[in-house]
């Protein structure tokens, strides 16, 4: 089958090249979300690829709309990524012993990535402590709470967008987000 015929029915009419540019545009965001959700670079890399493979395979199902209204390609991708995270968590629960073998990511790792290194040592130490506390609290959240928390506070999405990504109702999103914030605040306060 010639390549042009393969992509003739896709919404990305210009085919592979166009999809490639979409990937370039959205990849960092998807990877960031997966990395923050899974705390494992390798798995995040793999799932990012899986996410785009799924998107490519299901490209004719993308209508530019969702249950809750119009939906951008980015939201649609994030929806796939959130599903992947959920599937991954479900399957890794079954093989928990394997997870035991793999060393969990050290929370110190994140605090090494605090961007503004011009801060005074005290401020840096404080920021590091805060990052560790948030990171640990986020890691101990349930999968849903963590997803909405990361979408809200890392991806800067609003409640409606989060609802579209996760497929939950807005009220449900609020509940999960509220509980997540309460837990993280508790983590921050315990640090003190």
């Amino acid at each position, binding site marked *: 089958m010639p390549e042009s015929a393969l992509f003739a029915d896709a919404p990305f009419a210009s085919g592979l090249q166009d999809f490639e540019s979409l990937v370039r545009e959205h990849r960092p965001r998807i*990877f960031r979300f997966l990395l923050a959700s899974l705390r494992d670079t390798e798995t995040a890399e793999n799932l990012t690829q899986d996410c*785009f493979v799924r998107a490519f*395979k299901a490209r004719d199902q993308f209508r530019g709309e969702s249950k809750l209204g119009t939906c951008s390609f980015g939201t649609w991708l994030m929806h796939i990524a959130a599903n992947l995270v959920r599937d991954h968590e479900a399957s890794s629960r079954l093989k928990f012993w394997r997870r035991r073998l793999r060393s969990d990511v050290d929370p110190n790792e994140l605090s090494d*990535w605090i*961007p503004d290194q011009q801060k005074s040592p005290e401020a840096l130490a404080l920021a590091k402590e805060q990052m560790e506390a948030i990171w640990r609290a986020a890691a101990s959240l349930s999968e849903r709470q963590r997803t909405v928390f990361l979408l809200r506070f890392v991806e800067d999405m609003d409640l409606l967008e989060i609802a579209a990504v996760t497929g939950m109702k807005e009220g449900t999103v609020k509940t999960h987000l*509220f509980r997540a*914030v309460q837990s993280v605040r508790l983590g921050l306060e315990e640090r003190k």
Partner: protein
Amino acid sequence: MNPHLAHHLTRKQISKYLIGDGSPQESQHVLDCATCGGELARLESSFSQFRATVRHWSDRRSGTDGVVPWTARVEVATLKGLYGGHETVAGIGSVLIHVAVVVLLLAAGSLPPVQKAMKEFVPLFAPDLKLQPKPKLEQSKGGGGSPQRTAQTKGELPRVAPKSFVPPIRPQDDPKLALSPTIVAPDMPNINSPNYGSPLAGLGIPSAGNGIGTGIGSGRGPGVGPGNGGGSGGGVYKIGGGVSAPVPVFKPEPEYSEEARKAKWQGAVLLELVVDENGVPQNIKVVRSLGLGLDQKAIEAVQKWRFKPGQKDGKAVPVSANIEVNFRLL
């Protein structure tokens, strides 16, 4: 200031405001109240710091080097799998095959010949096992021995005791604890003689016989005579004359052998055995054989038997007995 919000925001209200779900009054209060505003600003700065850190981390980690281009992944992913793209057919086929195998097994199990064979059984009757005592006048038998070259000579029997500590010959010189020599024997006629020996033996150079052990005679053990163990004469105790018969207390039934069952072979096996002081059968021998593996089955069963041992003068003694094991089919 809004009178409804004269007090500060609660913990929950702050969290709600933080997720973008605050009421207009609460927003106003945050603007007005330095305490709540400061608390929120601290939290927001923490979260924005978190956001910046995660973004920084992810940007550094997402270097595309070493990552397979996604187009290659699509091709790998769309390659035909183990079943050449027929996974559904293969799955259904597998289920069908398994179901077929199970159905076949069940069907085979419900076939008339199989059912018949399962119901068929061979009734086994408890074998008629009875002890066959052989009354004998002589009380018991036993034997003694002593490693000397000549046969035992006439003499006085040493004192009879349950256990022989000092043999009648070779008394130790200057023992620390003096004991008179003893043998293990029943009451028997004795004579007065300066030498130890057998009252029934002939005269000669004093000797305690040419057996093995600490008794008198050509046997083995601490008794008198040519037998084994204690007592006089030869052999173990026999039932009768003050020696009671051993009573079986645990008697598992023998199994039929396959050949005998097929041949519908019936009969009795007569076994001879010795029940020792502990009630355990020893030295089981077949006196009358039945064949077709039934002898072996009878021995196997009787080996598992346990007895209340035969007694003489209130003491358990080894007693020989005959047991008939009946095999009968109906």
